[in-house]
């Protein structure tokens, strides 16, 4: 039983890894680099925190 679980773990790992690689390729070829890297850390906070004391 444990050997079957072990093989199932390999199978699931390979399937999910391949899906992530496929999705990565799909996203990178669909959207421009400017859009994907447009987020700036702290940006949303800058909207809500004005720091006027």
């Amino acid at each position, binding site marked *: 039983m*444990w*050997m079957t679980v*072990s*093989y199932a*773990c*390999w199978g*699931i*790992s390979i399937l*999910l*890894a391949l*899906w*992530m*690689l496929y*999705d*990565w390729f799909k*996203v990178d070829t669909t*959207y421009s*680099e400017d*859009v*994907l*890297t*447009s*987020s*700036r*850390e*702290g*940006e*949303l*906070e*800058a*909207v809500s*925190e*004005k*720091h006027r*004391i």
Partner: protein
Amino acid sequence: MTAAVETELTTTIHGDRVSLLRVLGPAHVWALGVGIVLVGEFTGWNFAADKGGALAALIVCWIVGLLYTSVAMIDSEVTSTVAAAGGQYAQAKHIVGPLMAFNVALFLVFAYTMLEVSDAILLGDTIVAKAGVEGLTHNSFIAATIVVLAWLNYRGVLMTLNVNFVITAIAYVSIVILFFSVSPWTQGAVLKLNELVTPANALPYGWIGVIAAFQFGIWYYLGIEGTTQAAEEVRSPARSLPYGTMAGMITLLIAAAMTWYVCASLMPWEYLGITYYPLWDAGKLTGSPLLENLLFIATLLAALASANGCINDAARAWFSAVHPKYRTLYRSILFVLPMALAFAFIADLNQAITFSILSGVLQYTFMSINIMMFRKKWPLGSIRRGYTHPFHPLPAIVLFCLCMVTFFAIFLGFGSQLIAMTVFYFLISLWFHFYRYKFVRRGDQFSMPWPRPQGY
């Protein structure tokens, strides 16, 4: 004002610009912090007993608890003010400078990735130990742990931390069930603390053993500072981060005390100090198959929760492109994935743990200096703080002193690794200063709308 309005407009148009989602609350912050740490109760802390005896493990539980309470207080103030993904990296960038930020980012990525590796190895070894099947190795379980959790993180932060909340809560409740199942109020029935910890063997190596035990005492709480990485995804950073972090520390102090009491009352320190499964062993020693199986499952869940939180935090420390559909840092997650797999297959558990602890303590040392600079450059009243920690500068001084003691303890146990890592960070800093610094865009360093710091 104009800049703020422009930012508001541009961040909300999906498809034009993509950013992380603000979907988390205090419970998720708790799940992230406690989830990363709780595995330390299931394995790791007990090696402190090997260094200095059972009483030393209890003494460091409280003293290291003080170290982490200082970490939580300082972190809550700085993070509720510098509310940006990247946590201590973003703090270093704003408060100290690019070279410190570069080093802190490396501390974070190594600390979380090596902890994730340790968790995966622990999970694999625990399953192999339970199965007891000839020819069964831990590799498939390690691969599944790392890849499935990476996939979960890839698909979205809300589900990731909902899962973490549930499995962390189950693991925590298992400790509480174990504690009340052994009649903790009655010595002699199941627990035999007065026989196992006596004045003659409480501190077998004296007070130097207590100092040496600091190295593994860190395991009681290692990773609670990871709550800061959720700063950009919580709905209200000023409220959620201090609440989640402080509640996490209180939860962990209680769990650590219960764990020590049950384990030290069931196992002699000579065995407690070398076993990889103190709580699972405690479950076995009660003679109850139900408790034994519960603690086995809880050990697996704690390892899963920790690895899950570590993937979340390592990705945010790295920070890269945001997935337009899932709103996660998908490239960071995929970048760290092969690194974790490679280390998990080639490194042993002790090396990975030491790497993680060293990077963590370097980070805490930075935090003690960071808060002093933060208060000096932006004194109280100059900017709005989500939370202001009391007794400043006492927590910073306590944190710095306890970090120095921990470095000495690590030197006693893993001196060569400590020196090797220090040399590594020194050389990589030289590389950054001479070859990389020229590419740093200083104007982009400050993303907070703060006034100019005092003295500049």
